[in-house]
Structure formats: C-alpha cells, structure tokens
C-alpha cells in the first residue's frame, strides 16, 4: 500500500477511536460518574461531543443594556437583540448563530460569576465578559463622555409560574475602561 492511502486509513482509524473514547468520557461526565477531561486544546472541536440538546437551559436569557449620560441620568434598559420573525427559518436562519453566540456568552459569564458567588476581578478580563462588553458597546455609539452597562435576565414566559429574574448586572464601562 502506498504512503498516502496508509496515512489516510490510519488517520480515520485514530480519529474514530478518539471519538468513541471521548463519547464514553462525555457520558461518564454527564452522569457525574467521573469528571470529563479538559479538551481545551482541541480548539477546532475535531474530537466530537455528541450530546446535542441533551441538557438545554430551561429559560430564555435576555441581554439588555443601558447608558449613563453625561448629566448623570440613566436611559431605560433596552434589549440588545431579539430573534426576528422569519417564515423561512426552516431553510434559512442566520440568526440561530447569533442566538447561540449570545447564549454562550451568557452561559460562560454566569458560570464564572457563580464560581465565587460574587463578581471577582478575573471575571472582568475573562473572554466571555470582554466579548459581551465589546458586543454591547458596538450595538450603537456610547454617548460622548457617557458609559454603558449590561444585564442578563430571564424573561417572563407564557407559563404562569415563570417570573422574570435578574441574573447578572455589569458595572458601568466605557471603551477606555471600567468605571469605578
């Protein structure tokens, strides 16, 4: 057998074995039998994690923001983004990526914030916080001399027992730094 075919077969074989092993670890982790190994090195997600939609979060998170104006007044909270109505979303839905990104920002941020039960310094240099702050500051220009803050909240659902809840409120920040 030539080198290329042998290499390709070996590549697929190793990939499959690694994938099967990862699913076993994943399921053990999911069942809390043993902790799931850190796969942070696999940034391309080459080793698949096939547990899609097995533990979806039960409530929708909403990302809101408001501005502090130069006169000290605060604007009302505004929604950063809402899913637009799209009758063709079964075949064409770019907004699902937006939603996934925002959900991921919120999830990571809330997990980090819950770790110590308070907002610690590391939180504000974490990727999730920086990404959310950059996104929020880019939605529309921050008033000159003003600053902005964001909030993660759960929405009031159609089920009668679901009440809205505030989960995280960031400090005021401007593009030049966090306001003390």
């Amino acid at each position, binding site marked *: *057998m*030539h080198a*290329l*075919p042998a290499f*390709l*077969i070996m*590549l*697929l*074989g190793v*990939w*499959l074995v690694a*994938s099967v092993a990862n*699913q076993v670890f*994943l*399921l053990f982790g*999911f*069942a809390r039998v043993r902790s799931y190994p850190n796969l942070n090195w696999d*940034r*391309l*997600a*080459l080793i*698949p*994690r*096939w*547990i*899609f*939609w*097995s*533990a*979806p979060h*039960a*409530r*929708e998170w909403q990302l809101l923001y408001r501005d502090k104006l130069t006169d000290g007044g605060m604007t009302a909270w505004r929604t950063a983004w809402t*899913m637009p109505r*799209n009758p063709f*979303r*079964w*075949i*064409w*839905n*770019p*907004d*699902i*990526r*937006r*939603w*996934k*990104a*925002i959900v*991921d*920002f919120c999830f990571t941020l809330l997990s980090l914030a819950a770790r110590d039960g308070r907002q610690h310094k590391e939180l504000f240099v974490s*990727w999730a916080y*920086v*990404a959310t702050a*950059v*996104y929020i500051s*880019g939605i529309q220009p921050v008033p000159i001399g003003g600053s902005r803050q964001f909030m993660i909240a759960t929405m009031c*659902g*159609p*089920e009668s027992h679901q009440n809205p809840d505030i989960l995280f409120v960031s400090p005021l920040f401007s593009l030049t730094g966090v306001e003390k």
Partner: protein
Amino acid sequence: MTVDLSPLDVQCVNATLMMVAAGTAIGGAEILSMRQECTDHGLFSWKVARTSYPLILRSHAAGVLDMLCGYPQFLYAVMLQMLSALCILFRVFPSHVIYLLLPILFVHLLSMLRYSHASDGTDQMQTILLASLACYFATPDPVVRKAAIWFISLQTILAYCTSGIAKVLSKPWRQGTVLRSSLLLAPGNKTLYRWMPSNARVNQLLCVAVIAFECAFPLALTSPRNCLVILTFGLLLHLFNAVALGIPRFLFTFVAAYPLVFLSAMDLHSLLFPTH
C-alpha cells in the same frame, strides 16, 4: 480480500457530496448576510476571539491567523468557500472535486477558530463530512474510499447513540418537559408551542420516542430495510427540528450522511449473507 466500489457507492457518495455542498453554500450565505457581526465590534469579532488562544498569540502563527481571520479578509475566505461549494453543486470541474473540497474544509476550520462559541454539533459533523470526503476524493484507492464511507457511517451512529444515552441521563428529557420548554426559547416556533399538547404524559411519550429513536440508531446496520425505516424517522426528526427550532443546518449535515449509513448497512448485509 478485495474491496470494490459499486455504482451505488459512487451515487451515494455523490448524494452526500451534493448535500454537504448545499449546506456549505447556505451556511456561507448566512455568514455573509450578517457580515457586520464579523467586524471588530460584532459577535464574531476576531480581535476578541483571538484572545482565547494565548498559545497561538505567542507564536509566529498569530500573524498568519490575523491575516486569514481578520476583517474583512475572512469574508473573502467565506466567499471562496461558497464558490467552491457552488462549483461542486453545478458539477464544474467534476474530476477535481478534491481541489474544491480542500478550501471548503480549510475555511470551515478557520471559522471554527473564529466563532467557536457559535458552533454546535452541526459544525462538528460538517468537519467529519468534509475531512472524510476529502480522504475519499484524495485517492482512487478503494480501501481508503470504503474506509471514508464507514468512518462517516460510524460517526453518525455514534452521534445519535451518544445523544440518546445522554438524553436518558437527562432528567428533563425523562420527565418529558424538554420539547415544550425548548419551543419557548428564542428560536422555538411559538405557533407549534400552542399546538403542542399540554398533557404531561403525551409530552413524556414524545420525549421517550426521541430517546428511543436515537438509542436504536445502531440498528440501522442490521439490514438495509431496517436502515431505511430508521433513516426515514431521522429525516422526519430533522425536518421537525428545522421547523420547530429553526436549525436547518442539521438537516444538511446529518441527513447528508444518511446515504453512506445505508451503504454501510448494504455492505454489512452482503458480508453476513453473501448471495453466492
């Protein structure tokens, strides 16, 4: 032992290739339609994303990655990816498919770096499909080609089976609350939510049906007939997901693997029950 590829093998691989190309073209068009999110202040800002790769930032690769993933050049890469996918779809350069697949795979991997936080199981399946198809078209060797077909089939079976077992372990799935509550999330179809029965037992039955289907997916290899039945259920599930949760890319990636799962079932059947 000799390995031969039948005309059916070639037809099924081509069907998979076409679906992958269609999914790539639609996915690329989706990214271009929200190109403002790829700017430095967007959700997929490379300036922010690159900070989560400290090792790369300290290496010489940083400059190369900045050049490829920065704005707006990343959008040109996506355009190249779309163009390659369209060439596959319209059978331009049919004998040079590998040279069309490689740029698609390369840009796909770049996008995994650029917006890993917005990626999901569809993107992982897309990686598997693209890499395996690249292996298939890289060489005429029939052993490699069969290996690529089986690799995709086994990964597909592994995907459904793992997901099914994880759902068994998930309390909301066992209780039957997931389907209705998922429709209340932002991508959920609210009209469908209103139509869904509110009876807890019926919802639990629907959830158990999804779990049973996913756990039973390996049975697709038991015979070509069983395979067709299971794949039909799979297609219906993905169509439902596309309508209910607005996730059409699942339809193009997972269903794209179905012709190859069918081929594997045929292979196994002819191996276990040779006709002559």
